[in-house]
């Protein structure tokens, strides 16, 4: 049995006393970052799917890069860009009176960087899978590109894009490496679930680790189920 507690480790009292702050922080960070990366991601996905321009392949590579780079490398880059010495960091500090790094807002930036590439990739594929005849028909009927996107392309790709958003949310929920580099591990302020689990295991608090692991696993499974439900059975035609 566990050395760190007597009797059943998961009695009601334990759950009541458990510090759920990391869990709620993670949800808040993931929700906010998903909203922001959906906005930016849809726009980038649209540009990549519909426009031809110089440097498109470069942009595509830049968008994909975060998927393949080690999280610590991403975190390092992010520190360089939003750190207190950077122009962005200085501007932020001048505007809000406090630095961005090592706050929960920095964790949001980290989560965006971690989840947006996946969202952009999937959203691009979803937009490109819409039968071009619908878009061409809308154009011959005089619809502007803007109206065509909102009234035809997006509704037709809706389910695939919602599935991509759900997956991006799950990924944002689980970021560890980038978050710990730019937001740190400050209990009660920037400690997200992934970081809290690491912390609990390191300090031998197996009970807490298990509770958080189970909670996150259940949530992730739920999101996956939702994403699979949303994913259309066959391509939109």
């Amino acid at each position, binding site marked *: 049995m566990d050395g760190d507690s007597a009797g059943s480790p998961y009695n009601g009292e334990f759950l009541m006393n458990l510090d759920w702050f990391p869990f709620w922080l993670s949800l808040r960070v993931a929700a906010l970052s998903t909203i922001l990366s959906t906005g930016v991601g849809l726009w980038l996905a649209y540009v990549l799917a519909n426009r031809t321009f110089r440097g498109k392949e470069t942009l595509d590579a830049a968008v994909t890069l975060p998927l393949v780079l080690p999280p610590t490398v991403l975190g390092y880059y992010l520190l360089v860009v939003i750190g207190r010495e950077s122009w962005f960091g200085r501007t932020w500090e001048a505007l809000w009176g406090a630095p961005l790094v090592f706050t929960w807002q920095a964790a949001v930036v980290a989560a965006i960087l971690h989840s947006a590439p996946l969202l952009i990739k999937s959203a691009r594929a979803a937009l490109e899978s819409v*039968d071009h*005849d*619908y878009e*061409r*028909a*809308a*154009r*011959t*009927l*005089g*619809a*502007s590109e803007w*109206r065509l996107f909102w*009234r*035809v392309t997006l*509704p*037709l790709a809706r389910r695939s894009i919602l599935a991509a958003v759900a997956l991006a949310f799950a990924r944002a929920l689980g970021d560890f490496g980038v978050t710990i580099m730019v937001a740190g591990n400050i209990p009660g302020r920037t400690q997200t679930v992934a970081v809290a689990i690491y912390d609990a295991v390191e300090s031998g608090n197996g009970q807490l680790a298990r509770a958080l692991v189970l909670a996150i696993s259940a949530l992730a499974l739920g999101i996956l189920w939702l994403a699979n439900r949303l994913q259309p059975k066959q391509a*939109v*035609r």
Partner: protein
Amino acid sequence: MIEIRIRKHFPRAHGSSAFTLDVELAAQPGVTVLFGPSGAGKTLTLDAIAGFLKPDSGRVLVDDMLLFDGATGVCLPPQERHCGYVFQNYALFPHMNLRQNIAFAAERLPRLERHRKVQEMLARFRLDEVASRAPHELSGGQRQRGSIARALLAAPRLLLLDEPARGLDAPLRAELYDVIREVRAGFQLPVVLVTHDLEECFALGDAMHVVREGRIVQSGAPESIVESPANLDVARLLGLFDLFEAEVRTLDPGTNSSRLRFGEFELSAPYLPGKFKGDRVWIYVLPERVRAMPRDGQRPGQNQIPSTLERMIDRPHAIRLEFSNGLRADVARSAFAGWAGTRDWLIEYPAAELRAL
């Protein structure tokens, strides 16, 4: 009135050889048919008119509006071209019902006027009762009419139809032809239709252009093209004729006659203008005008060629006989029943039916 002169080169790419589209045509109100095999460039021509394809050079003029001009760099986007386009799969938006689909073409109009026009269009195409159905709940004919109604509601300057009858069964096809005739009669606008079905050219076409390998090889009324194909390629594309090569032996304009040599036989034919003695010419003849009869040991008479039956093909109206020397003839089913099993035949070409390319 449309005037099109476009040129576009497609370099060799994966799995396809280089292709040059070089088309010049004019279309009046009424139905203009682009006829040709798949891959001839018919749909590319429509796309260049509608603005989905930017030619390298040339110009596209509709009425007095310049849609594309290579020399001055004018190239309007599809939205500003006012070309109605009916797609092969109709492209009715699956997430809207029929009324919403049609109203999509009139969203710039004020609400009341839009409502009135949509209602008018629904009534005109006998769609009012199914207006609230989604496209997948409509019959093929309703989808067809819905798609045409939607294109017309945007008040286009011309209507482009991309193989609208492809994959339709015969009754739906007839229904579609009726709808297109209604459009021709009720809307004063040029209709350009792409097809590879010759019957469609005759059913609908006021003018016809034969497209082959990116070029227009013959233009005219459908009857006149079938009457005198411009060259061997057109004759083959039409798919109507028996074609065989013969040598001109004599020409006599005085009696409007000529003699042709085919293998070891001689045939009489009408005078062939523009040909000379000794020319090799392609003779074309409609198989239904050719007569075939069992030989029964007779000597071949005037314009008769003895032939050995190789195979028989059942066709809707007749039985087509194919002979070992490459000739063909159609025989009525009832007549053939009495001759079944005959191997040696005489094929007779009525002199007046022989034409030369």
